[in-house]
């Protein structure tokens, strides 16, 4: 169901780094996540409910961080700059506006 704990843990740290830059290791979230991960690390045989819950919660947190970031990126790219010009809009779906040789007639 959920991904392996170590992968989730690493991915969360990556998201924190993207949020905070190089000094992400000094954040509260970094310390907390690392501490929790170490606490919940148990030997392979003791696969218990509490650990599975912790993995699911960390997976949810990872999803929150990464989807918020990806949503913001798309927002910046497509929705954050006001309305596009007709040329840009057409270009986005692979079309080009026809050009009218000699102007459209209403220019002075």
């Amino acid at each position, binding site marked *: 169901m959920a991904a392996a704990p170590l992968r989730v843990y690493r991915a969360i740290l990556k998201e924190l780094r993207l*949020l905070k830059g190089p000094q992400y290791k000094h954040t509260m*979230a970094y310390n907390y996540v690392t501490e929790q991960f170490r606490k*919940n690390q148990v030997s392979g045989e003791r696969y218990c409910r509490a650990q599975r819950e912790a993995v699911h919660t960390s997976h*949810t947190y990872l*999803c*929150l961080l990464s989807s918020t970031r990806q*949503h913001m990126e798309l*927002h910046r790219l*497509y929705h954050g700059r006001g309305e596009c010009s007709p040329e840009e809009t057409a270009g986005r779906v692979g079309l080009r506006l026809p050009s009218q040789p000699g102007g459209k007639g209403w220019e002075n």
Partner: protein
Amino acid sequence: MLHNLCKYRHFSRAFLSLAGRQIETSGSSTHVQRAKYGSAAQERKKFYEDVTISQGEDGRFEINLDKRKLRTPGGKLFTLPNEALAIAVATEWDAQKDTLKFYTMHLTTLCYTALDNPTQRSKDQMISAALKYLDTDTICYRVEEPPGLVELQKNEWDPVMDWIEKRYNVVIGSSSSIMGPKIPEETKETFYQHLNSYNFWSLTGLEYVITQLKSLVLSFGLIDRHLTVEHAVLLSQLEEEYQIQRWGNVEWAHDYDMYEMRSRTAAGALFVHLSSESSMVKKKLMQD
């Protein structure tokens, strides 16, 4: 359409609290006191550098922006029940650059809602609002055509339906009629009892998840850790997914909506998990 609805819901929450502003009469002058809910689209300059958390005398956690304590739009002190949630909220504030983008701070928004309770509802009212979704649950409504989608719904939704019917020992069923399946009263009673065991904060989060997924069944699947956020969102958008597979994906509409829905759903689920006391106790027991 659904997306617009949930946007409307988001706004209506803020709007209701504006509409519900209190009018205080003191002496001869009448003051209108309104909660300071900005518009969701409005961005505010970042006015702080450091975000820290501290524990108040009552054991609850507070967020400090530089030296100032964070307050809710309603003017209450922003206090949180546990450290994990406090750190997650603090991280949201810490992650802001130059301007504050409130529409990316879902956990903070949920805490505001839980603390201020802008719609002034009781726990009972929240439970019945949540149960109402069962009557029109997304995964109970099946199509009869096209055959590809019929099969997709059967393959993807039936396992979740089987899971919830076993897990709670209830009958829900599905239907392709416009009226939907008839949900037995016992089922509602069982879910009522179950929801009643949630605290107010968890219910706030759960309701948020339900309004995102438009399904009580999928929400329980997520909260009971049977589904991941990604899977729950996918199941909730099954028809759209089918159309995408057929007609192609449009990044600025489909992906944009999907990521927004994922982040909102994840925030809601995390909020439920972090604000239910019992899971914290379990974690502590494990450490001993």
